[in-house]
């Protein structure tokens, strides 16, 4: 009976592994208005946000600059105390039990490093080993795995300051994972990375989530990160949650249009069809926008019949366009 009850509460806490109830963060900002005079006003960085994330989910958390993304993450790690509302991570109130929570979470801030600048990479890991009191065997196993998958082998003895940005980021991701965190917060993990590094980092994160069911909250400006990693997306703006749902739903909301890219045999004037309109021409390649709800088939058939078609592809609207459209619609409505 007891065990049943435990199992039940366990699954409940798994379903709401991260839980925010009307969480707020208000900053008091002082503005100088004259000599020795200042005006105080409130800035609501996070304004009554509620959501839950079940264990093992990988969620994208996106929004424009200053929307409140980093403030949310800082509250989730416990380094900022919410001004209002209730917040739990793995059943722990982060700001009250920061140290206890710290052993269960991993954080990667893309623009900062957790590694020690002057020391060889491996030294930072040895410090993590002690700091998180990772059992020796576990530490070895996790380190070996990260070294292999993130290709850190040749870098271990290099002082961190000599690493390239992409190398350092991979080093940072490994550092955040040595203690088997149940939750990983990634704040812009691919910022400034080259294409190859981005691919490596994404592959690694996907495997991590699949194999260890690590819960991941991902903040990014690079929407292809989200497209490739997250099924669920939350959009925050002006401190409020404006969308929470599947990525496809986000497309539908603001999407409106998809793009058909066609390569013709030679340069031609813009294609003239009533099903779509040409938005861009570049040599023999043309971009056509058509309603997202329409099928591409009749359009393709028409073009193939009337034009010397060589190749084609259909592009889903990218999230950036979708979000800006969402804002535009909200503003006009």
């Amino acid at each position, binding site marked *: 009976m007891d065990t049943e009850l435990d199992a039940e509460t366990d699954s409940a806490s798994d379903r709401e592994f991260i839980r925010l109830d009307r969480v707020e963060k208000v*900053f008091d900002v002082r503005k100088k208005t004259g000599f020795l005079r200042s005006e105080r006003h409130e800035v609501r960085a996070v304004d009554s946000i509620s959501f839950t994330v079940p264990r093992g989910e990988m969620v994208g958390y996106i929004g424009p*600059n*200053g929307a409140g993304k*980093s403030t949310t993450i*800082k509250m989730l*790690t*416990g*380094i*900022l*105390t919410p001004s209002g509302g209730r917040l739990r991570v793995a059943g722990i109130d982060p700001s009250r039990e*920061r*140290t*206890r929570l*710290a*052993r269960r*979470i991993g*954080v990667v*801030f893309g*623009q*900062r*490093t*957790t590694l*020690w600048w*002057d*020391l060889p990479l491996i*030294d930072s890991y*040895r*410090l993590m080993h*002690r*700091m*998180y*009191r990772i059992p020796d065997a576990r530490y070895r196993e996790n380190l070996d795995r990260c070294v292999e998958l993130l290709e850190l082998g040749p870098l271990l003895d290099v002082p961190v300051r000599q690493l390239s940005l992409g190398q350092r980021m991979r080093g940072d991701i490994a550092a955040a994972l040595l203690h088997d965190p149940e939750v990983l917060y990634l704040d812009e993990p691919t910022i400034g990375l080259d294409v190859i590094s981005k691919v490596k980092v994404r592959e690694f994160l996907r495997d991590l989530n699949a194999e260890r069911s690590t819960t991941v909250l991902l903040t990014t400006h690079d929407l292809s990160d989200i497209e490739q990693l997250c099924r669920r997306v939350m959009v925050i703006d002006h401190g409020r949650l404006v969308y929470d749902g599947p990525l496809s739903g986000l497309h539908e909301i603001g999407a409106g249009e998809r793009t058909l890219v066609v390569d013709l045999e030679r340069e031609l004037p813009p294609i003239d069809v009533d099903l779509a309109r040409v938005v861009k021409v570049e040599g023999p390649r043309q971009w056509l926008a058509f309603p997202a709800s329409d099928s591409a088939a009749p359009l393709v058939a028409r073009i193939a019949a009337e034009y010397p078609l060589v190749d084609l592809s259909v592009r889903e609207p990218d999230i950036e366009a979708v979000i800006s459209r969402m804002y535009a619609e909200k503003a006009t409505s």
Partner: protein
Amino acid sequence: MGTGRLYAAVAVRAFRRYATYRVATAAGVFTNTVFGLILAYTYIALWDEKPHLGGYDQAQALTYVWLAQGLHAAVAAMGGGFEDELIERIRTGDIAIDLYRPADLQAWWLATDVGRAAFQLVGRGVVPMAFGALVFELALPADPATWLAFLVAVALGVAVSFAIRYIVAMMTFWFLDGAGVQQLATLVGIFFSGMLLPLNIFPGALGELGRVLPWSALIQAPADVLLGERTGSGLLSTYAFQAAWAVGLLAVGRLVQLAATRRVVVQGG
């Protein structure tokens, strides 16, 4: 035990890190040696004029010069060390990273400062002292127990120095730019640690004040121990004086840290 090992590892790494700054160490040793020469001749002139000034004979005075030159880096009498780094981390917001770690912020930085001090005691201390002993007649103790007693006083001095610099660095949370407070602290440190002139030689209220302020735990107190001016109960009261300041100021630092992280303004996105 687990935490002890962490902070020991942190200290060892800080030691190694400072050991890699070879050019800085050599430049520091050179500067201290030149400065020591200038001060030594100034002291000789002073003690010729006024023998037994401050209760020291000339050999003791010269020993004091070289001791201060060899010691001030280790006890960071002029500030710096972890302090600059911590201020920079608060200013840029990197402090956020330190705060979400399962480690105590103050203990962490104390460990790094102990590692740094240990390196600088050797790396910056031995050469100026040896040079001074070769060129001048110094009053160095022959008894290893006195040296041991001296090392204890140095360790306590490092603790006091750390506690002061930690408070200064924490001020950055409020002022956003620690430079002003830091400069003031440096000036006070140079004078009241006894780095330039022993506090013993200042008469009246100024001397009294200098001897009770925490900075005297940095150089004046270890120097008095090495010069054999503090033995028996005198030695114990010197230790007690240093330890009291260390504990008191570490506690103040902890309160300031608590206040700072409560109202924390972690800079930057």
